[in-house]
């Protein structure tokens, strides 16, 4: 078969004749995998900045006249298909191999990929979409300024309230890793898919781990970032998947795309 799942496990290339007959049989598969998918955020400032970054690298992206279309093309690389998807989906696609390249936040790739270094690599940071993943507590907790303070609080919280501290976040993995690094062990994560900053006031959590760029939303919700509570300084990055399958011949095109995108780093 001409589908590469893993270069290390890839069987020897089929003979030309076999490829021809194979194409007849698995026509759709070949069409799918001979393309190189570059995933780009589908809306807003992140999309505009991403397209500008691609343009600066010499890649002109065209979105179909129907502005709602989710597939686009690239003038310089006819084999490249542009997929317009949400930033979170892009992170998953890069890690699962559904996209060969993608532009998304480092926070999302680190969150979804516990073993991200084996599944994706950073081509380069793009210099926009800056945001920090932070640990924030209600600002009336005047006794708590650091992660060490939080650990001390966790120890007395359970005996006093009969339950562990609750931490609301959509970054379950980033939070676990950061809290373990700081030795905070007695807490419970509450998964939050939106409006995380409202959970302490609502009483569904005691503190949060969330992303912030200016800190305004946190302040508006009477939350304060711990002095050593910045878990990750994130920005938009161009990622290359290490697990995306490539059809025969597509690998060299993917390398050419990567070279074009990397070279721009020097120019920019």
């Amino acid at each position, binding site marked *: 078969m001409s589908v590469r799942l893993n270069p290390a496990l890839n069987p020897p290339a089929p003979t030309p004749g076999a490829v021809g007959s194979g194409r007849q049989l698995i026509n759709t598969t070949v069409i799918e995998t001979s393309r190189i998918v570059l995933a780009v955020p589908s809306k807003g400032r992140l999309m505009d900045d991403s397209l500008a970054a691609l343009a600066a690298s010499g890649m002109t992206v065209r979105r179909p006249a129907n502005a709602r279309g989710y597939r686009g093309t690239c003038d310089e690389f006819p084999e490249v298909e542009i997929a317009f998807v949400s930033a979170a989906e892009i992170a998953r696609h890069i890690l699962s191999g559904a996209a060969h390249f993608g532009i998304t936040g480092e926070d999302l790739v680190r969150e979804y990929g*516990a073993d991200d270094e084996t599944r994706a690599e950073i081509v380069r940071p793009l210099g926009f979409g800056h945001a920090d993943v932070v640990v924030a507590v209600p*600002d009336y*907790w005047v006794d708590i300024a650091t992660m060490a303070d939080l650990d*001390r609080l966790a120890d007395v919280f359970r005996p006093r309230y009969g339950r*562990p501290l609750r931490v609301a976040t959509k970054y379950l993995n980033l939070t676990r890793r950061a809290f373990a690094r700081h030795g905070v062990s007695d*807490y419970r994560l509450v998964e939050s898919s939106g409006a995380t900053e409202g959970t302490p006031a609502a009483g569904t959590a005691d503190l949060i781990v969330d992303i912030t760029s200016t800190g305004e939303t946190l302040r508006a919700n009477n939350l304060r970032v711990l002095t050593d509570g910045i878990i990750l300084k994130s920005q938009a990055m161009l990622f290359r998947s290490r697990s995306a399958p490539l059809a025969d011949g597509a690998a060299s095109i993917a390398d050419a795309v990567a070279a074009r995108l990397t070279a721009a780093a020097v120019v920019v």
Partner: protein
Amino acid sequence: MSPARVLTAETAHGFDRLEAQAQRILAAFGSTGHEPVAPAAIQPAAVFLDAIGEALRARTYVFTDPGGAELCLRPDLTVPVCRLHLERDPAGARYARYCYNGTAFRFQPADAGIAHPREFRQAGIEQIGNRTGVTPERADAECLAIVLDALAAAGLSPARLVITAGDLGLAQAILAAVDMPARWRRRLAGLHGRPAAFRAELARLSTTPGSQAAHLPSALLDQLAATHDTPTARADQLAIVTAHLEAHGLDIQGARTLDDLATSLAAIARDAVARPLDAPVAAVIERYAALSCPLTELAAALTDLAKDAGIETGMETGIDIAAAIASVETRTRELRSTGADPGRIAFSAEFGRSLAYYTGFMFEIGLPGEPRTSPIAGGGRYDGLMRACGAPIDVPAVGAAIHTERLLAALVGGRP
């Protein structure tokens, strides 16, 4: 993820042999009066997640069912047995002995290796409540002895085993015997089983106990410090903290109460002016924390420690840990009377188990040369877990589980 890993995780190797072995283990448990029970594999997530600590929660398979209930695949069988006991006896304190054999589920990272499948089998015992005329030390000893007997019934000779034990109750007794504020004791006891964090906190208390006050205004600290040991301390502290919050436009929006905040700030203010932990006291604690000896030598080591502590701290009679030493002696004697050899149990003051709910004596049983992360069996005392599961009061309880796949691997050679 390699194909080999998927196979390991999905396949119960030698299921028939595992079951035959489990029957021998259950027969041993049954002969000592344990009632076989089969709690549900799917459990409500909340109880588990509150009771076991985030370290294990991170490895628990949690899901939402079509009805919206948050559930989990049980990561161990101790909490399910406690819940089963509470169904039968909502007060929770009635004496009962249970045994079980079933699957437990824990997420394992891709590089976990074949000794750590995500679906594995445990056979274990739990003793809940007080049996008239039986000391907690006797119950601890019986629990360990019954597990050793069950391992022997399955064919694993005690002579092949490495048994390690720790004791949170003993650590608390040492801390209670030396001179320091109660809040420092609680803090250090909370770090039992985390040696690096324990040593760091001990060093902090010995040098800069006031470090937590660094970010607070000195006026607030001074006001709070002035209330210490006055008859109206509590009311004054509440008023001072209320005024501070109002002056800074801070509202109480969340679970933490004004009382909690005032207690915490008063303690910080106290630490800010506190003398660091006396060097001789820190030395006694350090010496205890470094203690590692056969269980049979523990009482003598503690007696020496108490005597020397008197010399070091300038107290004429040393520190008073007589009750704790007597407890160690009782447990050692009871172990001997069950037929277990306490001389083969290695006590370590730093030993703690990864589960958050243990409160007293605890142990792990493994093979020489195997990593500590892959014990064949483990258990201990968990006097707070029944309450965490919904009992109205603390209920004494002790239990242990055998990792039956590792046991089989140890018996047939090779690994599971």
